[in-house]
């Protein structure tokens, strides 16, 4: 007998009885074959019982409630970069810090994580650009000192 499956809104088939498992049959899939008036859930069809028995049970409920601790917002670091690093990167970090906490408070944990990452990037960029400037500046001073000392000869 030829069976049709409805998976994700798409009709698939026809399949022989033996092929059903390989083609995505689960307890929740709607099934139809010639002679039936309408689609029925696989779990309601006795003849499919022995096939469904070979499937592992559905996974346990893994949907976890949002963690109670918000992701790191990089607020302090952004403020430090704003006040000390002399580059406006930190200001952007502060904006994203606010977004992290807004998103977390309204239950959008994934958005909060995303904003946290963005805040981190801006803050660290600000820090390392400033650090790079200081190192370059000191190298520049060192070079001038070197040239100055050589011209004495």
């Amino acid at each position: 007998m030829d069976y049709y499956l409805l998976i994700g809104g798409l009709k698939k088939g026809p399949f022989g009885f033996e092929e059903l498992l390989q083609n995505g049959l689960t307890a929740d899939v709607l099934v139809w074959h010639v002679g039936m008036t309408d689609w029925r859930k696989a779990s309601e069809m006795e003849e499919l019982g022995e096939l469904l028995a070979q499937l592992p049970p559905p996974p346990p409920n893994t949907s976890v409630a949002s963690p109670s601790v918000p992701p790191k917002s990089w607020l302090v670091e952004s403020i430090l970069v704003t006040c000390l690093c002399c580059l406006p990167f930190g200001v952007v970090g502060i904006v994203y810090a606010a977004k992290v906490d807004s998103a977390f408070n309204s239950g959008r944990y994934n958005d909060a994580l995303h904003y946290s990452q963005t805040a981190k990037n801006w803050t660290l960029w600000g820090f390392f650009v400033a650090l790079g400037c200081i190192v370059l500046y000191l190298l520049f001073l060192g070079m001038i000192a070197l040239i100055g000392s050589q011209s004495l000869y």
Partner: protein
Amino acid sequence: MTKRWKYLGIGGGMILAGVVYYTLSPTSSSLFPKCPFFVWTGWKCPGCGSQRAVHALLHGDVAAAWGYNALLVVSLPIIIGLFYVESIRAKYPKLYIRVHQPLFIWIYFFIVIAWWLCRNWMGW
């Protein structure tokens, strides 16, 4: 282990910076770089004057520090408080959430922007 090294590095760096900023004055020594934002654009950024302010603060001169960079003087207590709250975040997440209210962060953000505009337009 890596965390310990990280804290050791940060602590050591802060002590070194403290000694350098205490002994040398950014006003008279050319060892300290100028703000790249100021050099490139001719505008002061929110952090301009911080090096001189840190030097003044290390010598206990809050008034002079205020004159160099008022934002830094205002921010220091906030920074210390936020670091403390963050260090106990895992234990007291509710305190952390209460302190990290978007409203507070936005207020701080607008203070920074207002400070940035004022010091360029009014020469603060």
